[in-house]
């Protein structure tokens, strides 16, 4: 593994103006991701994970700190970063092959060549035979695989994923995790995954960054020393259980704090009325 960081996040802070005043979503987060590494950011709901995703992806500006990828400071969306979103994001008017070929079409790759490349990525995510199907004809898991193949087709240096399997059932999620691991290992794809799912984070990652509940800060970094290559069978191992327990300790505190703060906010809002 190359030790030079591909992604370097330095002291990022993001504040939002809300009806109750200024809210700090992310507060002074710093971390880096080395080339070829798979890192997950985990935290309770509302801790600012998606804000981190949007800042690194260049979808949100006006923040403090610095994000650089492959040495370039990120100011807006960056060609080295490919994003997979939490919501279903395939284009319903394009079939699977056309969806996956989309970034190549934007890059003006010749039609024949882009279709060949797209077919390669479709096959990589295990959707060979579905090239001419439209998203409406596919399951949620298949649609997310199309979105993943489309992002991979843009050949990003950093694959940035925001809870891509959040809407799927646990079994599908585990099996898709296998697929992501296979692809990541085959392409040596540097990946940053945002998730609130502990099993997913430990199953896939080399390192897990645990965030605090609002404002989002980096609470702890956990190295996952599970052997490679991995698949979903790893979840039944003792080592896996140990890693999960270790992270859950921190996550539990933050999730409890989040629930308490949410409850007291609702009570205060009710009292004001």
């Amino acid at each position, binding site marked *: 593994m190359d030790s030079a960081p591909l992604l370097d996040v330095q002291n990022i802070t993001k504040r939002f103006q809300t009806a109750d005043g200024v809210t700090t979503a992310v507060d002074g987060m710093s971390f880096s991701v080395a080339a070829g590494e798979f890192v997950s950011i985990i935290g309770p709901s509302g801790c600012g994970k998606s804000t981190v995703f949007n800042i690194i992806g260049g979808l949100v500006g006006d923040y403090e700190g610095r994000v650089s990828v492959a040495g370039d400071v990120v100011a807006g969306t960056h060609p080295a970063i*490919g994003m997979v979103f939490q919501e279903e994001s395939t284009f319903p008017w*394009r079939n699977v092959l056309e969806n996956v070929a989309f970034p190549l079409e*934007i890059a003006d790759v010749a039609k024949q060549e882009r279709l060949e490349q797209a077919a390669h990525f479709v096959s990589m995510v295990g959707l060979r035979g579905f090239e001419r199907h439209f998203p409406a004809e596919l399951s949620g898991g298949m649609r997310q695989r199309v979105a993943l193949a489309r992002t991979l087709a843009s050949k990003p240096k950093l694959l940035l994923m925001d809870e891509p399997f959040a809407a799927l059932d646990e079994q599908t999620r585990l099996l898709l995790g296998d697929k992501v691991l296979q692809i990541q290992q085959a392409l040596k794809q540097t990946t940053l995954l945002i998730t609130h799912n502990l099993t997913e984070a430990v199953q896939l990652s080399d390192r897990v960054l645990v965030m605090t509940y609002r404002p989002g800060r980096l609470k702890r970094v956990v190295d996952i020393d599970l052997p490679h290559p991995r698949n979903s069978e790893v979840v039944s191992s003792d080592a896996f259980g140990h890693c999960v327990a270790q992270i859950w300790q921190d996550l539990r505190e933050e999730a409890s704090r989040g629930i308490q703060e949410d409850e007291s906010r609702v009570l205060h809002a009710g009292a004001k009325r």
Partner: protein
Amino acid sequence: MVAPWARSQAGARLFGIASLVAAIALIESLIRVGVINRFIVPLPSQIIAALPRIISEENVLHRFWQTTQELLWASLLLAVVGIALGALLYRFRILRLACETWVGALAAAPIVLAYPLFLVLFGRSATTIVAIGFAAGLAPVILKTVEGLAATRHVLINVGRSFRLSPAQQFWKILLPSALPSVFVGLRLGLIFAMINIVGVEFLINFGGLGQLINELAERYDLPGTYGAICFVILTSIVFFDVTQRLERWLTPAA
């Protein structure tokens, strides 16, 4: 429980035709027994019998083509100008806030009554008819275009941003394809308004295609001929509906 034959497309078509035939037969019998006055509504059998006559003597095919041409031009203008204005209103929020209510009001306005103004502007010509048809159909195209563009899911726009699309690429590759189903609803509504107004103005200014023919036949109190000509108006409407449906299916194959 629905019978299997009724679930098939051919079965549905057959049912539609059978319903039409049954309705015609009902009207025929109501007229024959005197429930409906035959001096106001002619017998459907008389209308059918009048069709060959109005085709050969009243040059109805030529008039049908004239009305179709006017509707074609109005449709083209509606598609180009209506979608462009809708996109403009979507793009500039201030413009949308300022104009959307007015455009909505335009949809309800009886534009056909302003035909003297159009006559002054364009003269007694096909241009007047096309202009009125266009003005009458414009509002729904604009409104449904704005609605379709505004309903584009934010995540799709973010996908475009993540691939660094230019504003023009965002529009052509994401916003417009996403809005197309709504745009076609607007176009179909616009076509209905345009069609009604085109035939109405042809009738009022006694110029052009099927509207003028209906006017002439009504003046002669040729009721079967008048109703026969109205059948051709309906035919024009069916043709245009079918064409837009095919176009929509071609442009949005996933729908």
